């Protein structure tokens, strides 16, 4: 990230050679004091749990501290590798994630490109404001509204289907085959407008002269989108893709938990919900930590691999 530039800056600006360390602290001690409390907070709440991952290799005993009591090696890892529930959750996570990226990665780009084509500036602003409202809505509310809309007895959606196509009511939120579409489409609803902000900002930054040149060459609107706008925002698209692939395993855990019912468990049990159930519900702390650590490590590998690939192929990277 910005660290490489920071390095060069600090060399240039740094007013204190090593010998005047005391003067440095006399001048700047307040800044260190200022940092002290937040830094302690940061280390406590971000790094203590990170170190807490050692619990994956240690046996947990109640009231004996969060870091466990004795080393057990890879026992917990071996156990979940042989656990069919883990592999089911793993597959569900991968399928849901890829489906989600496949649908919800391109949609905000298309939405931004189309919105940029809207002539009236005021209508454009209005659409944008409305479109990111769902991002501020709690997942609980989204799922609550959804369950009323899709309710088989009184839901609006089933009534419309019934009146238009004469279909019998379907219990959407309970049928396993509808779980993935529901997850993905509620994400579309909630985040398309929000994610599009970044692309719209990138489109606004495109050099106007490129469009004028394309006009002179006789390009139509569609050609300008394909040959000018998209190539110009490619770096933004790549960065967003890296971030998306990097967070492949971290799905909207809370939403899955809210959509989870015993009858759709075969498709809706993902790694995070498995960790939650084995860890917090069944208090198998070490076992759940091992599963969580595994998915965290896979996540880091995914980020660095996509970042490396993208650097090789397009010169774009996030660090």
């Amino acid at each position, binding site marked *: *990230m910005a*660290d490489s530039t*920071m390095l060069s*800056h*600090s060399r240039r600006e*740094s007013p204190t050679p090593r010998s005047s360390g005391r003067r*440095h602290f006399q001048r*700047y001690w307040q*800044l*260190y004091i*200022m*940092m002290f409390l*937040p830094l302690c*907070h*940061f*280390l*406590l*709440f*971000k*790094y*203590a*749990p*990170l*170190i*807490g*991952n050692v*619990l994956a290799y240690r046996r*947990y005993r109640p009231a004996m501290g*969060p870091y466990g009591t004795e080393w057990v090696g890879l026992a917990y890892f071996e156990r979940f590798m042989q656990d069919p529930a883990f592999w089911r959750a793993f597959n569900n996570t991968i399928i849901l994630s890829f489906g989600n990226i496949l649908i919800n990665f391109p949609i905000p780009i298309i939405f931004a490109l*189309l919105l940029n*084509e*809207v002539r009236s500036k005021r*209508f454009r602003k209005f*659409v944008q*404001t*409305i*479109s990111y409202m769902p991002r*501020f*809505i709690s997942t*609980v*509310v989204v*799922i*609550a*509204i959804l369950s*009323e809309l899709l309710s088989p007895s*009184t839901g609006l959606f089933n*009534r419309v289907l019934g009146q238009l196509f004469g279909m019998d009511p379907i219990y959407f939120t309970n049928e396993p085959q509808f779980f993935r579409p529901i997850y993905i489409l509620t994400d579309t*609803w909630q985040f398309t407008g929000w994610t599009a*902000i*970044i692309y719209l*900002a990138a489109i606004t930054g495109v050099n106007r002269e490129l469009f004028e040149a394309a006009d002179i060459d006789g390009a139509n609107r569609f050609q300008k989108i394909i040959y000018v706008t998209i190539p110009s925002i490619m770096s933004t698209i790549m*960065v967003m893709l890296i971030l998306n692939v990097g967070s492949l395993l971290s799905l909207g855990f*809370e939403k899955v938990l809210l959509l989870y019912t015993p009858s759709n468990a075969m498709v809706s049990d993902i790694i*995070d919900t498995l*960790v939650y159930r084995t860890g*917090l519900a069944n208090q198998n702390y070490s076992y759940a*930590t091992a599963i969580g*650590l595994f998915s*965290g490590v896979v*996540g880091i590998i995914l980020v660095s691999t996509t970042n490396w690939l993208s650097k090789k192929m397009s010169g774009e990277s996030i660090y």
Partner: protein
Amino acid sequence: MFKQPKLRSLTFADVLINAFMFFVVLICFVPFLYMLALSLSSPKAIINNEVSLFPVGLNFEAYKQIFTYPNFFKAYGNTIFYTAGGTLIALFMSAMFAYAMSKRFLKGHKLVMMLIVFSMFFSGGLIPTYLLISSLHLTNTVWAMLLPFALNQFNLIILINFFRAIPAEIEEAAIIDGLSYFGILQRVILPLSTPALATIGLYTAVFFWNDWFNGMIYLNTNQYPVMLFLRNIVNGTAMIGDGAGAADKSTIAMSIKSAVIITSTLPIIILYPMLQRFFVAGLTVGSVKG
């Protein structure tokens, strides 16, 4: 404006795009309209499937009921408390941390920056965090909500970048005037940073307002926030309303559920358009590339 581009009449493509955008607005809005309609309709109209986007048999019974239901008030008050307290703590901690971190010449600056960035990609996970918070004896206290989420790496980076963009001359002038660094932060930097503070303040407030999961795993029943209350109504673990007539119960529950949804979402829907000129800038300035 320099030169007005020549006015072109609306083409077919324009009509199509505008129609599509109109459709998008509708999709975003219809669910709320439906909720509003349900919350204001009579149980009879709901059970006969007469309600679509406008209330049928307009009445405020559902709202009257939730406002006389003590648990709802309690939960709503809890949420307001967590949101106000949590956001204040978060802004206080983030501002101090980010201001110090905006000074590249401080010793250890690079190391702390690395710690911040690294923890964005690799975090402690659910179980270690839970065990930490319970071993600090924060569970079943409001501190379990207020403390652990005060610092967020994305917000910190937005703020650090914003502070760095403030011209150094302003600060040098303040130092010559004899202000300490605490004085500079309080009297010079923070007043200049309202857009960034409003942005991360909004993100934080929305996070606290919408949270239910942390409330569920860390708090006890009378500390529950309103979103958890709503979730418990939805999945049937909490009951609301008087048991007047068993047949009516599910439909009463339906309009009450809708009324809870509307009342718990309204503050955010009212708040965000007012702050949007800030957060759009904040998102694009501070995000992604750091």
